[in-house]
């Protein structure tokens, strides 16, 4: 005989399904900017996210390896420019991350309300 329990299944928790590649403050910022801008240049990202070039490159490399962004290098005159575009997989991953964050917020709010007298 098994006893019924109210303990939720840990695999149901929204934090469990969070993608480690996307669920990172800087990488989320990169995806959010690239999504809004359609196409964004390396320098703009560096300024907005307040990162060193090396640090930003590492994050971009992680996202590119995961297939979430495309990186296109070119020249404008003599100046090298690197453009970042979100891939369809990147769009999906961003939407999924936002959905999971909203579920987490809703879950936290529900738990808080339950605990309040």
């Amino acid at each position, binding site marked *: 005989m098994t006893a019924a329990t109210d303990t939720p299944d840990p695999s149901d928790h929204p934090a469990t399904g969070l993608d480690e590649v996307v669920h990172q*403050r800087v990488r989320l910022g990169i995806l959010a900017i690239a999504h809004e801008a359609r196409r964004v240049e390396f320098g703009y990202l560096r300024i907005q996210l307040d990162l060193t070039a090396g640090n930003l490159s590492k994050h971009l490399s992680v996202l590119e390896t995961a297939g979430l962004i495309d990186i296109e290098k070119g020249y404008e005159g003599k100046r090298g420019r690197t453009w970042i575009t979100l891939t369809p997989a990147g769009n999906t991953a961003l939407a999924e991350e936002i959905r999971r964050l909203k579920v987490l917020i809703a879950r936290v709010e529900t738990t808080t309300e339950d605990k309040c007298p």
Partner: protein
Amino acid sequence: MTTDSVSAGDDPRRLLSDMRILAGRVRRDQRLTWVALLVLAAATFLAIPFDWLFMTVRCEADGCMFARRGLLYYWPPALLLGYAAIAVSYVRAARAQGLGARVLPYAITGAVTAGVLTTAYVAAALYLPSHPPFGGGPSPFWWIVLDRLIAPWGLIGLALLVLARLERNVPLLLFTLGYLALVLLVLPTTEGAVPPDWALLSFMSAADTQLRLSMTTPQLITGTVLLAGGIGFSVARRRRR
């Protein structure tokens, strides 16, 4: 933003809020509202001589009849070229900042407004002379508002509303609502506004000249409002920087 990984204790609200802030910054950096308003103001001012030159006026004892052919010749290409110029400006400015730009909506807006204007004016020119609305009697207010809405100045307002929605631009939305209230409810853009006697010089005394002048005044006001808006948005952008 920091380079730290998100820890289990990180607040998802904060993450979402950061993302919204970044997306908002991108939208703000992509905007070139002042250019759009200045282009539309220039188009409005340039329309005045066309309207004046191509307006046919026939005056008889019981009044004057007029046809504003210049609107049809000028505005459809002007709207297409205007929105194309706006789209190109947006692309260039965004690219200079290191961003992409959504320009398809501007091109579509230009094409749709030009199409609506041409269709409405051709249909009116073909149908209304043989079927005067409301038996040739006075038109109700809703008809007048509709007439003003499909006139070029009303369509500019509608296009600006679309722009404000696409850019999620609240200041532009407020400006556009004010502009639409002016051109739809206050300014007689399609009926003309007779200037006061003191503003008329002796060579303007002919009936047909006065009719042309009455059509010019609302266009001057509309162009000035768009110009003022363009200057205002440009100043606000410079101050923000």
